[in-house]
């Protein structure tokens, strides 16, 4: 059994976590915390550290109802992270006040996207994807989840995940080529 970080994870880690062993939880956070925070960061939430804390808090509260091994635990944690991210966007959509007047100096959403694309960075390529496509790509690339596990996390059938992934890959490949990724040396690698 291998973790995301490449170190060995003890086979009974889920059992020990269920028993509330602090050292086990620290090990789990060390292993998966950076990936969960990276997923939240790449999804553009304002507070990725808070999301990370909330994910592990929710996991600790609900682990009594969880059934499965370490791999299933990872998928389950991403499912929690997905819901935390979606809920944050829903909350901010409900609570963000409307501006009293149209600000002329503040860039609009389209302009922000263009600015981010022009700013470069690997994550900027994700701007060509919609939210669901981004979730699928990030869970597969960062979390290493298979289509079935991603489907469980986002509440879709594996077949639907593959369709979303196919669409996302087409968009992403074009964008990455435009950005100079996937050149001849990578194709031969």
């Amino acid at each position: 059994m291998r973790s995301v970080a490449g170190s060995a994870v003890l086979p009974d880690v889920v059992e020990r976590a269920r028993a509330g062993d602090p050292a086990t939880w620290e090990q789990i956070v060390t292993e998966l915390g950076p990936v969960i925070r990276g997923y939240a960061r790449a999804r553009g939430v304002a507070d990725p550290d808070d999301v990370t804390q909330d994910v592990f808090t929710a996991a600790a509260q609900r682990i009594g109802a969880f059934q499965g091994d370490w791999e299933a635990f990872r998928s389950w944690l991403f499912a929690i992270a997905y819901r935390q991210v979606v809920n944050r966007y829903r909350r901010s959509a409900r609570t963000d006040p409307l501006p009293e007047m149209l600000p002329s100096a503040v860039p609009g959403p389209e302009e922000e996207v263009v600015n981010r694309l022009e700013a470069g960075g690997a994550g900027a390529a994700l701007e060509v994807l919609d939210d669901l496509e981004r979730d699928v790509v990030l869970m597969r690339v960062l979390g290493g989840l298979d289509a079935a596990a991603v489907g469980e996390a986002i509440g879709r059938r594996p077949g639907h995940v593959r369709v979303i992934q196919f669409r996302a890959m087409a968009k992403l490949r074009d964008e990455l080529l435009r950005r100079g990724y996937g050149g001849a040396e990578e194709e031969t690698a």
Partner: protein
Amino acid sequence: MTRRNALPELPGGWVDDLAAEVVTPLETGRAAAIAATALGASAGGAGAAVVATHVVAKVIAATALTLTVGGAAAAVAGILPDPIQSFVADLVDGIGIDLPRPDQVLPDISTTIPAVTIPEIPELPLP
């Protein structure tokens, strides 16, 4: 930090750059703090939440039962406020239950018929 990319068809360089950009190790002591907070919340919070949920559920159930029984008795006695009594009576009328209805106060209707003058129709000239 190694990572398992499940989409090998994506350029590996981009996947590595993305991971380096967003997946950064937690600060020293941060993992322990997150774990402690999570366990603390689950130990105190979850138990309290379960108890609180049970108490709230009991209060809601008792309130709903009281309102249902009390409301039904008041409707049978015909002592609900007029609009509600009327609404409940209409509602149960459809299933064959006859409840008292509030006395209807009809507005005064004027019975005075204004005088009508019928214009005289001139006779049509004969051809």
